[in-house]
């Protein structure tokens, strides 16, 4: 602290000069108080240090002061350097950048290096890209993460374009990170680079590129995303690629326009490839696409019908339920019928914007056309998505049938889990729960039934 003023003030008190207005402070105050801020940085009391850092963040404006504060970096212990780097970064004056770079180049302490890398994100410019990109291969996780965050944050008119140029030349592991950076920067102007990477020979690069396109891609790029879907390996990568295309489709608000855009994009890939996109079409949904897929699901080609039914079964809502019911009823091939039946039950039980009665009605329809015990068991199982006393009444008779008793008990206890349904019909549920306790052979189901009867709750154990 500045003792000069304390002493002069005390002297003033002694001589009574303070009976007149206090004199204005001279210009040296700024310099002295700047020193005081610096002194606070080494104060053993963290709140005093915070007071000094806060001033560096938001007060004492000006490049000269920034340089002065930055020059203190070299004089502080590591924890002080970390704190000052953070404050200088928040101050946002690029005048501190050279000192930050110097510290980064000479610093051995990991926390200091991480803080310096983070500060570069706020204070740096395009010329820092090589440094930050190089740090993506740093040994320490924290340094790599800080470099990635700084690349996302780094400002400047050419930075995104420069990152895109670096992405094209980078080795696969670095390319993956840079694609994520471009997506996080919402670098829509660099979408060409990302599209190119979406058909890279390296699966990790392709997945990163498709994920980036899902985030920054626009409907105009749908056609250019399709080769990425085709190149993706079937399984996890293909699923992820389809989800990313669906994400871009979702940016088109109008359902019909969404369907048209996807059909147009898919057809660009050629008719012979179009069946590969039925699953994708199923994910996107919409009336236009139902007709497109239903035509294939009921067409003359057996293999294509299978793909069509699979696509309808993946529909994001229940709008295809009637179509699947129709296919189930009319199918002549047993396997095809079974596939359509399973799809109908899955879609009919989906908890979308329909109410519990509508879901239950679909399960009644499914039970009417179920032919085997397995199909009936599936319907009993999926009725659990209808949280209603009517669903309980629908399932309860199956408790009496030995082959369905256990799955029926399981479904009933699941519906009973919903207190808002259970409490409104307590007397009826109590009888059902007694029946479950008497019938079930599953200790967990019996325990749950007992808890619900006592008005207690039950927490599903977390999967290991």
């Amino acid at each position, binding site marked *: *602290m*500045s003792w000069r*003023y*304390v002493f002069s*003030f*005390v002297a003033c*008190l002694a001589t009574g000069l*303070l*009976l007149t*207005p*206090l*004199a*204005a*402070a001279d210009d040296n*105050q*700024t310099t002295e*108080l*700047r020193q*005081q*801020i610096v002194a*606070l940085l080494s104060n053993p*009391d963290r*709140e*005093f240090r915070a*007071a*000094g850092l*806060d*001033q560096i963040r*938001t*007060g*004492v*404006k*000006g490049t000269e*002061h920034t340089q002065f504060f930055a020059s203190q970096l070299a004089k502080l212990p590591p924890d002080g350097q970390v704190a000052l780097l953070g404050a200088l970064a928040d101050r946002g004056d690029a005048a501190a950048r050279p000192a930050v770079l110097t510290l980064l180049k000479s610093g051995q302490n990991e926390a200091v290096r991480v803080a310096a890398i983070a500060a570069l994100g706020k204070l740096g410019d395009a010329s820092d890209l090589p440094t930050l990109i190089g740090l993506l291969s740093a040994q320490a996780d924290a340094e790599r993460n800080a470099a990635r965050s700084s690349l996302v944050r780094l400002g400047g008119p050419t930075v995104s374009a420069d990152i895109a140029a670096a992405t094209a030349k980078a080795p696969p592991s670095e390319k993956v990170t840079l694609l994520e950076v471009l997506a996080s920067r919402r670098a829509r102007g660099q979408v060409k680079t990302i599209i190119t990477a979406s058909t890279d020979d390296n699966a990790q690069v392709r997945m990163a590129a498709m994920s980036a396109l899902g985030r920054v891609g626009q409907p105009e790029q749908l056609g250019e995303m399709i080769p990425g879907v085709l190149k993706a390996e079937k399984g996890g990568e293909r699923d992820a690629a389809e989800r990313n295309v669906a994400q871009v489709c979702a940016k088109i608000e109008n359902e019909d326009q969404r369907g048209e855009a996807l059909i147009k994009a898919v057809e660009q890939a050629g008719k012979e490839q179009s069946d590969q996109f039925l699953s994708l079409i199923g994910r996107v949904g919409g009336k236009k696409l139902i007709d497109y897929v239903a035509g294939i699901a009921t067409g003359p080609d057996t293999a294509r019908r299978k793909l069509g039914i699979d696509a309808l079964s993946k529909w994001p809502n229940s709008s295809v339920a009637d179509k699947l019911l129709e296919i189930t009823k009319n199918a002549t091939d047993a396997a095809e019928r079974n596939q359509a039946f399973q799809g109908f039950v899955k879609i009919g039980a989906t908890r979308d914007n329909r109410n519990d009665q509508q879901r239950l009605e679909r399960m009644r329809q499914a039970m009417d056309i179920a032919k085997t015990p397995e199909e009936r068991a599936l319907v009993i199982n999926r009725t659990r998505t209808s949280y209603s006393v009517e669903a309980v009444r629908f399932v309860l008779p199956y408790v009496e049938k030995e082959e369905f008793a256990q799955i029926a008990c399981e479904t009933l206890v699941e519906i009973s889990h919903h207190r808002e349904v259970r409490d409104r019909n307590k007397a009826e549920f109590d009888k059902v729960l007694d029946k479950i306790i008497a019938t079930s052979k599953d200790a967990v189901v019996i325990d749950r039934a007992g808890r619900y009867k006592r008005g207690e709750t039950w927490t599903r154990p977390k999967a290991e």
Partner: protein
Amino acid sequence: MPLDDAFQALKTYDWGTDRAPVTPITEAVAAAQSNAEARQDLESRLLAALSSDISRDAKDFVCRMLTIVGSTAAISALAALLPDEQLSHMARYALERITGPEASQALRDALPKLAGKLKLGAIGSLGVRRDSASVSALANLLKDADPAVARAAAQALGLIGTPAAAHALLQAQPAAPLQAAVTDATLACAEAILAANDPATALKIYQTLAADTQPRLVRLAATRGQLACAARTA
């Protein structure tokens, strides 16, 4: 005239009676906001009511109305209520809001005649009025034998928040139990002075309070204050 009827009703107005009959007065006071003549007329009628033999609740109501339409013409009537145990606080409430030095003078003049809570109230009102002319009177009260009076004076000086108020607080040599109130008021002065764009003066106050002899939290507040001054001058 509903207003005449309302003033008539005021004569019998008391705790627990229906407030509706006097509501026209409230409405007239609100409506007179930008009509000087109407305000003056209402003030005259309210003062006449105040000097008449109406209930305590009616006088309380009149004082509340005078907080809005009261002027220097109301000061003597309100000042006369300051020693009244029941109406002193409502009279201060009205006096606090009357512009001009006369209301402060009335409060200052009343100080020697008041004791206990009523005195504390008058001191507080001088603080609320931020009356710089009261600094000297309040500074004398910092030495009062009654610690409550000395504490109220310190708080009032803090509210006044001028360099002179700060000076009075810094010169005081309070007993230990009063030290915290004086320090708090001094910090309040420094903040007010800084807010009034006089960082140099505020800085000197903060520097005094940042001395190592001060408690940690006072030093921390003073340090933050010094830094705020630096930000203004840099």
